[in-house]
């Protein structure tokens, strides 16, 4: 049979394809629906948080930081509760990473605060002596792309039914609603209002001035995102 296949490239290719495609189906299909169901308390990202997530992705923070806490005592001691599948339900793309040059950030919002991030992103080694993380000073001047964040909200809402403007069950039995604005201008206004809350805890004067003049620097969006990781 193999000799015959070796003389017929087309059937050879078909045989190879069947062999390799088969495993993929078995691996991927059975669990698809279940894995994407959100856990109680998992919310979609707000516009500002999404803009921050884009900053995170743009700078490949996932090259050094994971967002996946494995079920080991040593990891739950260091980073908090182990990750659950449904906690990632609104993560497109997922950001688990595959290398921990720096610590896991899955629940960083529980253990760090706005002013700490501000100091740290400006000069990591100034806060943590010996840190090899690069400083990200341009984020204090570059503007975040709120338009694209809003576009993503609209897209995931339309295409994947991500529940914006709908009550989402929380762990304590209450519900919360993550708003999605009806227009880009409204989205920008909302993001700016969120940015003002963050910036109130910051010290950098240029950043404060930018927000006061209606612009949102990347660092503010990024911090909003980091604070949302809980």
């Amino acid at each position, binding site marked *: 049979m193999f000799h015959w296949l*070796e*003389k017929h490239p087309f059937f050879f290719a078909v045989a*190879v394809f069947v062999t390799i495609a088969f495993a993929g189906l078995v691996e991927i299909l059975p669990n698809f629906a279940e894995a*994407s169901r959100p856990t109680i308390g998992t919310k979609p990202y707000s516009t500002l948080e999404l803009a921050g997530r884009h900053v995170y992705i743009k700078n490949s923070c996932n*090259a050094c930081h994971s967002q996946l806490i494995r079920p080991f005592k040593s990891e739950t001691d260091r980073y908090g509760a182990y990750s659950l*599948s449904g906690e990632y339900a609104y993560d*497109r793309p997922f950001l688990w990473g595959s290398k921990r040059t720096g610590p896991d950030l899955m629940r960083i919002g529980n253990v760090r605060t706005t002013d700490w991030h501000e100091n740290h992103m400006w000069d990591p080694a100034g806060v943590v002596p010996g840190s090899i993380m690069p400083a990200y000073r341009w984020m204090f001047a570059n503007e975040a792309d709120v338009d694209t964040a809003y576009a993503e909200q609209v897209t995931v809402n339309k295409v994947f039914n991500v529940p914006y403007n709908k009550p989402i069950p929380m762990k304590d039995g209450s519900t919360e609603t993550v708003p999605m604005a009806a227009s880009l201008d409204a989205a920008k206004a909302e993001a700016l209002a969120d940015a003002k809350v963050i910036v109130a805890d910051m010290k950098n004067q240029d950043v404060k001035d930018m927000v006061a003049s209606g612009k949102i620097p990347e660092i503010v969006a990024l911090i909003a995102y980091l604070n949302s990781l809980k």
Partner: protein
Amino acid sequence: MENRPLEYDYTVAKWFMIATIVLGVVGMLVGVILAWQLAFPGVNLMLGEGLAEYTNFSRLRPLHTDAVTYGFTVSGIMATWYYVGQRVLKVSMAESPFLMFIGKLQFILYIVVVAAVVVSLLLGFTQSKEYAEFEWPIDIGVVVVWVLWGVSIFGLSGIRREKSLYISIWYYIAAFLAVAMLYLFNNMSVPTYFVAGVGSVMHSVSMYSGTNDALVQWWFGHNAVAFVFTTPIVAMIYYFLPKESGQAVYSYKLSLLSFWGLMFVYLWAGGHHLVYSTVPDWMQTMGSVFSVVLILPSWGSAINMLLTMKGEWNQVASNPLIKFMVLASTFYMFSTLEGPIQAIKSVNALAHFTDWIVGHVHDGVLGWVAFMIFAALFHMAPRVFKREIYSKSLMNTQFWIQTLGVVLYFTSMWIAGITQGMMWRAHDEFGNLAYSFIDTVTVLHPYYTIRAVGGTLYLIGVFMFAYNMFMTMTAAKRVEESQMQNTSPMGA
């Protein structure tokens, strides 16, 4: 016709050879920069504070991985395809203006895509999934280039004179099919601009979310390794080692079983990137178990090649080209043993997220992939450029300096990774974590430095290679192809 040697047309092969060299230099230069950045973070500011956005570690890292994977390695694959394909199918590109056109078109589009990739990654356009970073417009470009390669493979096969397909062709076909399937599914995404009408045109969101996205990513990621860093490289060694040494392949049966074994087992192993994650336990276990099985079909090819050289120690000792290939198959064995061991759940618990994985990656890519590509290009050069290889002693120096580089790289990352993994897990006498995270970073400094030195040595070897190839193209002594059967002619 059958009696007189065919005039093969190497135009496209030649172009891809040059691309391989250039992208190899670029990709590995960036790799070396990354290595120094981790040892000395000041290097993040190498072009000053103003350009730090483009020169810092995290912006450059995807550029390195993609430049070496889709730049250096894929050009190497194409260069060898446009050489080996013609020869083992016994048909010349010159016989089909259509396939000639396809080949040239593929190269030109490929270069356009590469340029777009470099610019877009530097600007921070990325989908963040490893080895699938490019945003959707570039993905479309990649797909077109790939389809053109398929046309070339099946076109040449269609007009072949050699009825039965040589082993190398099996592996090229497998690489083509698998990468096509994997790349397509993993990059499925919805461009947001076309739904919302605002925002960046480049941006898209993945079709899959969270755990599912991870599952598709590592089904892809693992097999991207398999079908870019393994299958086509095996295709190369099955041609170039027997050809250069004049030895017959040791065992057809071994070739056959290794090939089909590899095809069957490889796709099941992706779960080893997701051990102890939130994908279901049974899927992780499957990844681990199949990884262990995978040792054998992988080793099959390596053993087949080593046994092909049985009794030929004098060739290994005297021909640097064969040295490269023998060491490559040894490193292939090493990384396909190390990988499965790292895939065992308890070992992965420690190894995952550490530099031990990075070590594993580079003994594969530096010791196996890149060595094999260097050897292939060295073998092709005299036939393609009709000149002998410029300098054998430079080849030898390159071989030893790069071998030293790889050894420094993987030993330092091996020690660093295991140390880091142990420190993360360690508890002190009170049951509390024994180390703060930064302790586990600063302890690695010496190893990061050794790796950077090793990488730099390797890069120096790459420059020697580039110089040697350049001189071969332009200045070496002329030879005719008919004068070379096996061993490549080399100047002193």
